């Protein structure tokens, strides 16, 4: 084929042209905004993902120009390819809204809602989904399912209780690493992500399962309980890495690097590198390079301004002029008391990112 065939598709009364083979979800994302259905399990960089969470259900009110019959059921937009002349209803369909509210309720049914102590809070897709499409309360009155926490190797912790079984990590491990060592055991609401033999995952790229996890089920042990993401400053940075592209986002507080992740786009998916490959990063970059001096910082990362991460990050801000010098006729203000001389709280010499685990009083009482 010399020319790529373009299909006309109408989503929520907005008509666009997309190449044949595009999924409805990708077409809707190219329009953007509220038209894009939420997706918890679909990940465009992972082959075979999607279709499981059912949050991206849409109504197809007209199949195509050739066959205008509507589809009988709601379809998963992430796994349905567009046809020429297809008409899709997302937020304009009451059926879709109803079904989606149902799916959100189902997903939250066994979720512990421990956001206040969850490291994913602030960048959790389930939080966003619940906020945008869910109801304020649940009708579930039974005990929620719980699992023990497991360490998957020295860097990753698995907290199955929070898992929504999107299978993204399974696909990641399967497609990125040579030997898949973890998968889903058991079935139904007691299904769990687990390692097959021992709780160890040895692979240079296994850390990426943390980035693809839409919830806080897989967390970075070097970052657990260190900080809330919205207190951190995301910075684009790179280093010359022999294993991966080395293009990352650093999450700093002051000059301390608290966390390193891959660069994610507005849909929470890992961005492509300039040479068109997916920007997965290796474990060394992610877990072991936690000094600013390890990295070449490119500049602040733009995170969607609706995200809680962007709170307090203002672009083009005009700061009011400091007037104290003027009032004091050019003299500098004098420090009357250094709080660290009086109190031992928050010793400035303690590097929070370097301590093992959460910062408690024992860290400062040494």
């Amino acid at each position, binding site marked *: 084929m010399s020319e790529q065939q373009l299909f006309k598709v109408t989503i929520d009364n907005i008509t666009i042209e997309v190449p044949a083979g595009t999924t409805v979800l990708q077409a809707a994302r190219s329009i953007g905004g509220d038209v894009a259905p939420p997706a918890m399990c679909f990940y465009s960089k992972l082959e075979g993902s999607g*279709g499981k*969470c*059912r949050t991206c259900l849409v109504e197809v009110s007209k199949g195509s120009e050739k066959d205008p019959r509507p589809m009988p*059921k709601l379809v998963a937009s992430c796994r349905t390819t567009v046809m020429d002349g297809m008409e899709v209803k997302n937020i304009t369909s009451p059926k879709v809204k109803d079904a989606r509210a*149902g799916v959100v309720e*189902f997903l939250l*049914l066994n979720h512990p809602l421990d956001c206040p102590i969850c490291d994913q809070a602030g960048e959790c897709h389930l939080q966003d989904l619940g906020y945008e499409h869910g109801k304020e309360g649940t009708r579930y009155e039974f005990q929620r399912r719980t699992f023990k926490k497991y360490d998957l190797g020295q860097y990753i912790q698995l907290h199955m209780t929070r898992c929504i079984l999107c299978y993204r990590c399974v696909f990641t491990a399967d497609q990125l690493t040579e030997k898949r060592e973890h*998968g*889903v055991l058991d079935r139904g609401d007691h299904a769990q992500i687990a390692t097959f033999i021992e709780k160890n995952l040895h692979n240079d790229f296994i850390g990426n399962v943390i980035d693809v996890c839409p919830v806080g089920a897989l967390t970075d042990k070097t970052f657990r309980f260190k900080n809330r993401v919205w207190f951190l400053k995301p910075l684009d940075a790179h280093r010359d890495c022999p294993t991966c592209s080395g293009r990352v986002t650093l999450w700093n507080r002051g000059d301390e690097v608290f966390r390193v992740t891959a660069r994610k786009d507005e849909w929470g998916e890992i961005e492509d590198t300039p040479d068109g490959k997916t920007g997965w990063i290796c474990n060394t970059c992610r877990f072991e390079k936690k000094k600013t001096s390890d990295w070449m910082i490119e500049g602040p990362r733009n995170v969607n301004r609706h995200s809680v991460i962007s709170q307090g990050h203002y672009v083009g801000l005009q700061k009011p002029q400091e007037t104290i010098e003027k009032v004091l006729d050019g003299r500098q203000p004098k420090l009357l008391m250094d709080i660290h001389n009086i109190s031992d709280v928050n010793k400035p010499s303690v590097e929070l990112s370097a301590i093992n685990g959460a910062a408690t009083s024992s860290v400062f009482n040494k």
Partner: protein
Amino acid sequence: MGVKLLLEKAHIPGIRTYEVYRREGGYRSVEKALQSMTPEAIVEEVKKSGLRGRGGAGFPAGMKWSFIAKPEGVPRHLVCNADESEPGTFKDRYLMEFLPHLLIEGLIVASFALGSNNTYIYIRGEYAWIVDILETAINEAKANGWLGENILNSGFDCNIHVQRGAGAYICGEETALIESLEGKRGNPRIKPPFPAIKGLWQRPTVVNNVETLAAVVPIINIGGDEYAKIGVGRSTGTKLISACGNINKPGVYEIDMTVSVEEFIYSDEYCGGIANGKRLKACIPGGSSVPILPANLLLKTAKGETRYMNYESLSDGGFATGSMMGSGGFIILDEDQCIVKNTYTLARFYRHESCGQCSPCREGTGWMEKLLLRLEKGEGKMSDIDLLWDIQRKIEGNTICPLGDAAAWPVAAAIRHFRDEFEWHVTHAQEAQTRNFGLAHYADPIHVPVTA
């Protein structure tokens, strides 16, 4: 006495062995098909017969066969679905146990029609002893030249492999079955692509039920037109019904689909009436996942017509007042049975068997089970009934595979037809622990409005 096509010779001693089966006219259809018919002609014959899939959905088998893609140089496969796990259904077990050669005969003909050189029987793990029966039969057939290379000098090669499942209901769903056959976790695939295009090992595949494939034998022997004359309307041929529950004569019966439901339950030829002189309360006519019907709607349709044991009549009235033929698992409940408990038992089954892949089914089935248990224990609330209705509504149609629907339908139908029994479990919670609701008005004749 109705027509019998499949189980006609089931009572003959030694029919399980090749010698007796051959002596009784076995493998005639293979001779006819391989020596005098083209694969297209066989598909055409099956289309003409109007044979519908016997696994539950009732999709026309000939049509399914004609959908199979035929790309150059890519092997095609026929897979026999013997993962019969629907509670109440045991017709395939009977067929395979007593007439293994009938299935193999049907498989050879169907494999020839579809061009499958390697055909698989995926059998549920619990049917361990039947695997031996089938493998013995396959070896006998091979020794006598019905399987292997160049069968009957037709140039057609065919081998049949038996694969045991590991005990999962979901592996009866065709794409989950294919995944399991490939050695993976039995999660249903997202369709499209359908197995006819990309099935087993990404090759075109047809998955058919045991009974469907066995029915190919009489179709070839007597011809599609003759087969279509048996039965009524679009329900052609004969159907195996596995009757169980509170009846005098549980077992597998072959019917020609012109029998009324009343005759089937009460005549001595079939179920022989309700056991212990009790009265009929309700029936699940097609395996556990089809909607349950109260006695009055079971014997007569909402229009007051007699209901027959066939695809159309059983589904007359849609889900509001009808049910489905399903896989033919006919479960009878007498007046001493508690619908709430029965529904809970089914919900527990579906919760246990949900693969956990998509969220409505994974979470919803567990929720329904917990609510039903609470109602059954007399700790429920009135709002639980409405909540159950809302949950099943949100599962149905929103899942990857039909297991979600199968879990939702029994709950929906039980609430639709037996709501007062559910309410009684809430209002008379103490009493509900000591006695059953009984027959109540479920067998009363239905008022049929007369239109001018």
